[in-house]
C-alpha cells in the first residue's frame, strides 16, 4: 500500500522533473559541451578538452587575467554590498514602528524600491546622477565636489553601490522586521527586569531570533549582488575602462561580443561553481548552531 502511494507521488513530481530537465539540465549540458570545444562559427567544433579551464584559471594568460580581474571586482562588490546592506537593513528594521498606523505606511514605503524593475533602476540612477540634468549629480557638483560617474572609476563604484543599497536594503530590512515581530513581549520584559542594556537586548534576544531570516537575507543578497548585471550595464556599461566590468558583464562581452562560446561556457561553469561554493560556506557557518540544537531535540 505504501508502495503504490510512493509510485503515485513520483508520477506527480514527474512533470516538474521534465521541466527542470528541459529548462536547466539540458542547457547546462550544452554549456558543458561547449566548454570542452573550440568553435570558429559555421558549426565547426574542435575538441579542446580542459584547455579553456586551464587558461581560465591561469592568471598569466589573457583570458585568465581578465577572469580574475572581474572575479575580484565582483567579490569586492558583493563584500561591500553585504557589509553595508545587512547592518543597515537590521538598523532600519529595529527603527521601524511595531504598532499603529505607521506600520502599514512604513511597510509600503520600504517595499517601493523592490517593485521597480532592474533596468528601470539603472535608468533612474543614470539620469539622477548625471552632472548636467540629474538632481544628485548637479547638487554634488555644486557643493564643490568633483563627481562624474562616467569618467571616474571611484565615482562609478560609489554610484553603483549607492544604487544597489537604495534598491535592496529594504529587502533585508523587511526580512529582519518579520524576524523581530515574532519575538514575544515577555522577552523584552524579562530583559528589562534583568537590567539588560539596549545593546545586550540586541545581542542576546533580537540577533539570535533574527538569525534564520538573516541567513536568507545574506544568501539572497550575496547571490544577487554576485550576479549583478542589468543595473551597471545600464548605468556604466562596465566602464569607465573596465572599472565596473563584473563577471556577468564580462561573460556577456565574451559570449555575445566576441562570440568566444567555448571560453564563455567554461567561464560560466566556473562562475556557477563559485556561487554554489560560497553559498554553501555561508549556509554552513550560519546554520552551525542550529544543526547541533536540532540533533539534541530530535
Amino acid at each position, binding site marked *: 500500500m505504501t508502495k503504490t502511494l510512493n509510485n503515485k507521488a513520483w508520477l506527480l513530481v514527474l512533470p516538474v522533473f521534465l521541466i527542470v530537465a528541459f529548462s536547466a539540465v539540458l542547457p547546462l549540458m550544452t554549456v558543458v559541451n561547449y566548454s570542452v570545444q573550440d568553435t570558429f562559427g559555421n558549426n565547426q567544433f574542435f575538441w579542446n578538452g580542459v584547455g579553456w579551464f586551464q587558461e581560465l584559471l591561469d592568471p598569466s594568460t589573457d583570458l585568465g587575467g581578465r577572469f580574475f580581474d572581474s572575479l575580484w571586482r565582483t567579490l569586492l562588490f558583493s563584500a561591500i554590498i553585504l557589509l553595508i546592506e545587512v547592518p543597515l537593513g537590521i538598523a532600519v528594521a529595529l527603527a521601524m514602528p511595531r504598532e499603529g498606523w505607521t506600520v502599514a505606511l512604513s511597510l509600503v514605503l520600504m517595499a517601493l524600491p523592490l517593485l521597480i524593475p532592474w533596468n528601470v533602476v539603472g535608468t533612474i540612477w543614470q539620469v539622477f546622477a548625471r552632472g548636467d540634468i540629474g538632481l544628485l549629480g548637479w547638487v554634488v557638483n555644486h557643493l564643490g565636489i568633483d563627481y562624474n560617474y562616467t569618467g571616474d572609476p571611484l565615482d562609478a563604484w560609489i554610484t553603483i553601490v549607492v544604487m544597489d543599497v537604495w534598491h535592496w536594503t529594504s529587502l533585508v530590512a523587511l526580512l529582519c522586521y518579520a524576524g523581530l515581530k515574532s519575538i*514575544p513581549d*515577555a*522577552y523584552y*520584559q*524579562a530583559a*528589562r*527586569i*534583568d*537590567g*539588560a*542594556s539596549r545593546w*545586550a537586548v540586541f545581542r*542576546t*534576544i533580537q540577533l*539570535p*531570533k533574527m538569525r534564520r531570516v538573516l541567513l536568507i537575507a545574506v544568501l539572497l543578497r550575496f547571490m544577487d549582488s554576485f550576479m549583478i548585471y542589468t543595473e551597471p550595464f545600464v548605468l556604466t556599461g562596465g566602464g569607465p575602462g573596465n572599472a565596473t566590468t563584473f563577471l556577468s558583464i564580462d561573460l556577456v562581452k565574451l559570449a555575445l561580443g566576441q562570440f568566444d562560446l567555448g571560453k564563455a561556457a567554461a567561464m560560466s561553469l566556473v562562475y556557477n561553481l563559485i556561487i554554489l561554493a560560497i553559498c554553501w560556506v555561508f549556509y554552513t557557518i550560519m546554520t552551525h*548552531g542550529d544543526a547541533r*540544537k536540532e540533533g*539534541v*531535540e530530535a
Partner: protein
Amino acid sequence: MARITLDHLAHAYKPNPQGPHDYALKEINHVWSQGGAYALLGPSGCGKTTLLNIISGLVRPTRGRILFDDRDVTDLPTEARNIAQVFQFPVVYDTMTVRENLAFPLKNRHVPRDKTAQRVEEIARLLDLTSVLDRKASNLTADMKQKISLGRGLVRPDVAAILFDEPLTVIDPHLKWQLRSTLKEIHRALDITMIYVTHDQTEALTFADKVVVMHDGAVVQTGTPDELFERPAHTFVGHFIGSPGMNILPCQVEGATAFLGSETISLQRRYRTLNHKEQVELGIRPEFVQIQPKGAGLPVRIRRIDDIGRARIARVEMNGRMMAASVPENLSVSGDEASLRLDPRHIHIYADGHLVAGEALGGQAA
C-alpha cells in the same frame, strides 16, 4: 526584600473613566508583607494581570500609589524596581549556557566576576541546575527553562519580590508537582515576597499562604486556603474554589430555618430578617453533602455519578436544579432516587452574593 503596599490603586485602560464599569481594576487597598507567598486567583479578564503589570511597572495605574516598603515606586520603570518575574512561557536567552543565563542580571549590573560565579553556583544548587550549568539553555525542557527564569530573579541579592504569571501553563502534570514544591522550598529558604497569578485554584491554594480572589476587576475575598474553602465570603468564591464548586441554591431564611421549596433545613445560626429585595441563597460544598438511600433528607434524582479515582461525585437534581454531592465509599446506589444529607455546620447563607454572618445559636458556636 520588601513589603508591598497598594494604596487606593485603580486602573482604567480607557482615557477618561467615568463610572466603575470603565475600570479594569477597581479600587484596591492592600498590604503584602515582606516574605509572604501570595496568589492572585481569578478567571481571565478579572484584572489579575493588570494588577501584576502595575506591580512590575509595565502599567502605570490611573489612580493611587504603589509602595515598596516606604518608597513610592508608582512612577519607577520596571528595571528600577528590584522585582523579578517568571512568565507563562519560559524566557531564556537561547544563545547562552545555563550558567551565562543565570549570570546575566549580575553581569548587567557589573557585579565582580568571582562574586557572580559564586552566586550562580549557589542558586544552581538551590534549583538543582548544577548538572546542566554548561549546557545551552535552548536545548532544555520547559520545566528546566522555567527554573532558569526563576534563577535569573533569585540570583540578584537585592530582589524585592518575585512575580509569577501562570508559570506552570506549559509544564506536564507530573513535573508540575516537582516544580511547585521547589517553589515552596525556595520561598521558605530565601524569605522573598512572592506573588503568583493564576486561574488554577489548585496552584493558587497550594502555593500561597494568602490567596486574593478577584472577580470583575475587584477583590472579592482575601484569605488563607482553608478560609476560602470553609467560609467563602461571596458566592463567586464558593463557586470558583473547589472542584466541583459550592452548591448554591435559592432559598428563604427565617431565623434559624431555611426553606428550599417545600423542604425545611434547620441551621446552626440565626439570621437577621432578610429583605425581600435581596436574593437569598444557601451555599454548601459538595464535600459536606452526602448522598444516601431514599428516605430521610432532601429527595433528589441522581443524574450521573463521576468516578474521579479516589472518590465518587454524584450529580443530582432537586426541583430542577443541579447539585453535586459526595458518594460514601461503601454506598451502592440503585435506581435514580436518593436523598441528600447536608451537614448543617457547613451551610452558609448569602444575600445578593455576600455572606451573611448570622449569630451562633446558644452553646453551638461554630
